Structures are given as C-alpha cells and as structure tokens.
C-alpha cells in the first residue's frame, strides 16, 4: 500500500495553495509539518479525494483518489474543525458516520463502541456532543475516523485541545496504528508533537515541499547549515585544542565546569568519522555526544528561514 503524489498543484484563482508537490507515503506514521496556512489542510483534502487537484496526479495503490468511493471506504479522516451535529450523542454520531461506509446497523454499532473505547470516551458516549469539552470533541472526532478500521488515516491537527494525558494517549494510539501497517498521516504545526509520534516527516511551507525523510536525513541535506555537536569528555581542554585544528569546524565553545565542548561543523559526516579516530589516538574518554539542533525545531526554523 502506497500513496503516490506527482507534480501536484492546487490553485484558487491567482493563489497557489499547493505547488508542484512530488512525494510518496509508505505505511507507518508520517507527519505533515508546516506553519498555519502552509497548505497542509488543502493537501489533506486532496489526499482524501474531496478536492480535485488543479494539476498533477494523486494515487493510492495506482488508483486515482479523486471522487473514488471505493478508495474512500478505506480512508479515515479527522478534520481540524469541529464538525458535529450538536444534538447527537457521541455514540450516535460515530454510529451514523460508520454506517455510511456500508456496515450494517448492528456491525456499525459494534465498531462505533470499540472505537469510542479506544479513545477513552466510553463513559460519556451517551451524552450529547453539545455538552462535550474541546478535548472530548477531539476524541470523538478521532473515533469516527478509526471506527471502520481504515487502511489509511488522515488526521488534521488531532491533538488540538487535548490535555497532556489525552495527548499522550492519542499519540500512543497513532503510533500503534502506524505500527499495525496502516498509513497514518498526521498534520500539525507543533513540532514536538510530530517528533514524538514519528521521525518520518514532510515539511511544507507556502504550498511547497521543503523536505521529506527522517529528521536525520533532512539534517544531512542541509549541508550548508552548520550542525552543532556537543561532546562531553574528561579532557575538555585538550579536545578543544584538537578540534580547532579540524578544517570543517567553524566555531568551538567550551564549558570547563560541565566538561563539555560544543562545535559547529559544516561537514557532519566527516566530523563524525574523524572524532572517534581522534579519541582513540589521543586516549580521550568521550562520555556522551549529541547534536542539540538535530531536532525538528532547528530544522524547521532553518528551512523556513526562521
């Protein structure tokens, strides 16, 4: 199962919402990341077959998704907006929507209850949606997306309005769904949320795809942007002196109290290759090594020019 997007564009009159995107999505969790207005929701609505691309192709297992009701049966969608009928109970809401996928009334009820259990809403499922809190609405919205056991899930800002406990539960659920072989696409503008669910991301800004891959892969692509590496060592003065001799090292900051040195390198691969050799040769005991800007925030800031 694979989603293929080729040369995809969408424009509204003179405004381009999505611009020449080409990528593919495999099973597992994939994060759509970008600031508000980046084109994530437009892209998602094209992926679920609601919006027709202005240009390009979008296929799931080779079949075009646009208006394809057979494929739609395999898709679950959790929109960003609160899309509810306030007078329905949570259970009736999920039950009604599941029946639209072709399940019988009884089977739909069974599946609705199961999904509601998964999002931990069993206790409140007989209450009217109008009386739900923002977090409860988010959970029930998620339940309707997963209740028919779709192969492909699109979740638009699924963690909005959830409390920390709820976030943790839903993140775990999303990760589990990905591990079960489903394609789960999660859009968010909050970097650490996506990072906690997956390291496979698509960075989108102004409708353009900035990068795709794991956080590390993307970091590798940015060879012009110096990578920060922090090393903790027993002989920090000596190590600093050696590092200054490396031609790829642009700057060095050391902290004697913490026994650590932070360097900026514009050739991370070369740096990571040479450091162990140096440690061995000069008998330096390196206790830890990490890259403080090899996280999503740093990459995102850099790529979108933040």
């Amino acid at each position, binding site marked *: 199962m694979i989603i293929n997007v080729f040369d995809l564009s969408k*424009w509204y009159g003179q405004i381009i919402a999505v611009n020449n995107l080409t990528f593919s999505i495999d099973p597992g969790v994939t994060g759509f990341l970008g600031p508000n207005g980046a084109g994530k929701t437009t892209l998602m609505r094209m992926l679920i077959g609601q919006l027709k691309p202005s240009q390009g192709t979008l296929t799931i297992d080779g079949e075009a998704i646009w208006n394809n009701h057979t494929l739609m049966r395999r898709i679950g969608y959790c929109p960003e907006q609160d899309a509810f009928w*306030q007078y329905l109970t949570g259970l009736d809401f999920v039950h009604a929507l599941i029946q639209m996928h072709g399940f019988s009334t009884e089977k739909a009820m069974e599946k609705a209850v199961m999904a509601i259990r998964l999002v931990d809403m069993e206790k409140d499922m007989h209450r009217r949606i109008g009386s739900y809190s923002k977090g409860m609405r988010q959970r029930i919205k998620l339940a309707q997306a997963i209740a028919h056991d779709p192969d492909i899930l699109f979740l638009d800002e699924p963690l909005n309005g959830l409390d920390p406990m709820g976030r943790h539960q839903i993140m775990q659920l999303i990760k589990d769904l990905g591990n079960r072989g489903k394609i789960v696409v999660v859009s968010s503008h909050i970097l650490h949320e996506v990072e906690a669910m997956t390291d496979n991301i698509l960075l989108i800004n102004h409708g353009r795809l900035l990068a795709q891959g794991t956080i590390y892969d993307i970091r590798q692509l940015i060879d012009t942007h110096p990578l920060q590496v922090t090393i903790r060592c027993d002989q920090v003065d000596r190590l600093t002196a050696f590092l200054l001799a490396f031609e790829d090292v642009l700057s060095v900051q050391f902290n004697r109290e913490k026994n650590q040195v932070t360097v900026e390198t514009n050739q991370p691969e070369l740096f990571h290759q040479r450091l162990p050799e140096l440690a061995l040769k000069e008998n330096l005991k390196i206790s830890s090594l990490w890259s403080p800007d090899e996280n999503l925030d740093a990459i995102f800031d850099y790529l979108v020019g933040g």
Partner: protein
Amino acid sequence: MPVYDQNYRAWKGHLMPFPRAWWVIAKTHIRLRWKRGVIALLILAAFPFLMRALQILAVARMEDYQFLQQFAKNLEIDAAFFKDFLFGQSFWFILMIILTGAGIIANDQKYKASQLYFSKPVTYWDYITGKFITVSFYSGIITFIPAILLFFMQLVLAENNTFIQSFFWIPFAIAGFGIIALLVFGSLILALSAMVSGRSAGIFFFALLLFPDIIRAIIPSVPEIGLISVSANIKQVGSVIFGLPKPYDYSTWLAGIALLVTFLICMGILRWRVKPSEVVT
C-alpha cells in the same frame, strides 16, 4: 524499527455493495428533528384529520346514529373532500417544512459537518436525497399520509362499490399532488437552507410564500400575476389533478411550468452551494 505489514488487509465482513448513505442521513436527521416543537405540531396537525375521519364515519353511519345526521348533512365524500383536506393542511405543512428544513443544510455548513459527510463514500445525491426525505417525512406525515388513510377509511366504510368505481384514482391524485408539492416546497427550503442561516432560511421561505400573495391581492385585475406565487400555482395544479375547476383565471400549464422553473432554480442553487468535492478550473 517496526516491520510493516505491506499488504492490503481488506475488511473480512460483509459490506453493502452500494452503501445507502442517503438512508443513513435521512434516518439520522429524522431522529435529530424529533423534538418537542415537531411533536406539538404533529399533534395540532392531527386535529383536522380527526375531524375529517369523523365526517366520513358520520356519512357512513348516519342512519344508525341520529346525532350524526346534523354533522353529516350535505356532506359528500368526493374528490373535493380530499382536495379541501390537503389545501386546509397547507398552514401546518408550511410550518413543518420550516421547522424541519430551515436548518437542515445551514447547520451542516455552520458546523462544517459537510466536510465530514463527504470524507465518507457519500455522493451529492445521497446528501440531497437524505435531507429531502427528512423534510418530506414530517411534511408528508401530516398531509398526504392522512389523506390516503381517509381514502381507505371511506373505502372500508362504504356500503357499495359506487365510491371506488367513481374515485379509484384518488390515491394517485393524492400521491401526484404530494410529490409535486414536496418537490417544490422541499427544494425551496433546502436551497434557502444552503444559502443562509437556519433562522433566515425560515424567514425567507415564509416571505417567498407571503409576498407574491400580497401582490396578487393588491393587483387582482391581472390574474397572471399569480404565476409568481408558488402557493397559487400549487393550488392551480392541485385542483386540476383532483379534476376540479381551477381556482385562478390563468393557464394551468403556465402554473405547472412556473413550478418546474422554481424547482430547477432551487436545484441549481443546491448544486452551486453544496459541494461534495470541490473542482477548481
């Protein structure tokens, strides 16, 4: 690193080959609309039906019960009886259409629920049909269904075959008139609901029915002005369907065409306003 199962794992159970989404939408909305206001209206609208039922009983049993004689005097159970019942229910019919239909699309747009509908295998026609059935269900239950019931009541109570021989076509006339009225009024309220908020849709619907009648009353010398009135056109066509003289002095064909044009305009508005999936050219 998780090892993914790359195969498509289809649902092993039974799925309906063509999901009847319109039925699910209709069912859900019929339940949703079952509110205090609707129940009160159903009870009030049942009184004229009970009166007519009593009249049928009176005519049939006049000789057995003397007290019924006054009540049934000069009363004939014929086509006009059924037409009058239906025309008399028009006030309740309009109220029910407003109560059940004004917010039916407007609320979906307000809460962005259409986005959810159309992320499911739901077509435009599923959506419109589901909504239309909801409005028709409640409006029909106080008008056309009781009219049919009255017909069968008369059939059961009639002592000979004269009634059925003369008026066997009445159920078809009721159904035909019902379909026309529901299509026109139903599409009108759906179109308004798709354009404005629920409350405004109700007000506009009422205004669209009232103002042409006011204009018709102000200028009685030009009977063709009645063509702008949906209710006048419905009465004109309805009378002809029941084989009775037309109430207004203009062509029934033109009235029929005016109703068709109203219906088509409403369907056009619905097509424009309700977008299952958006196409930008």
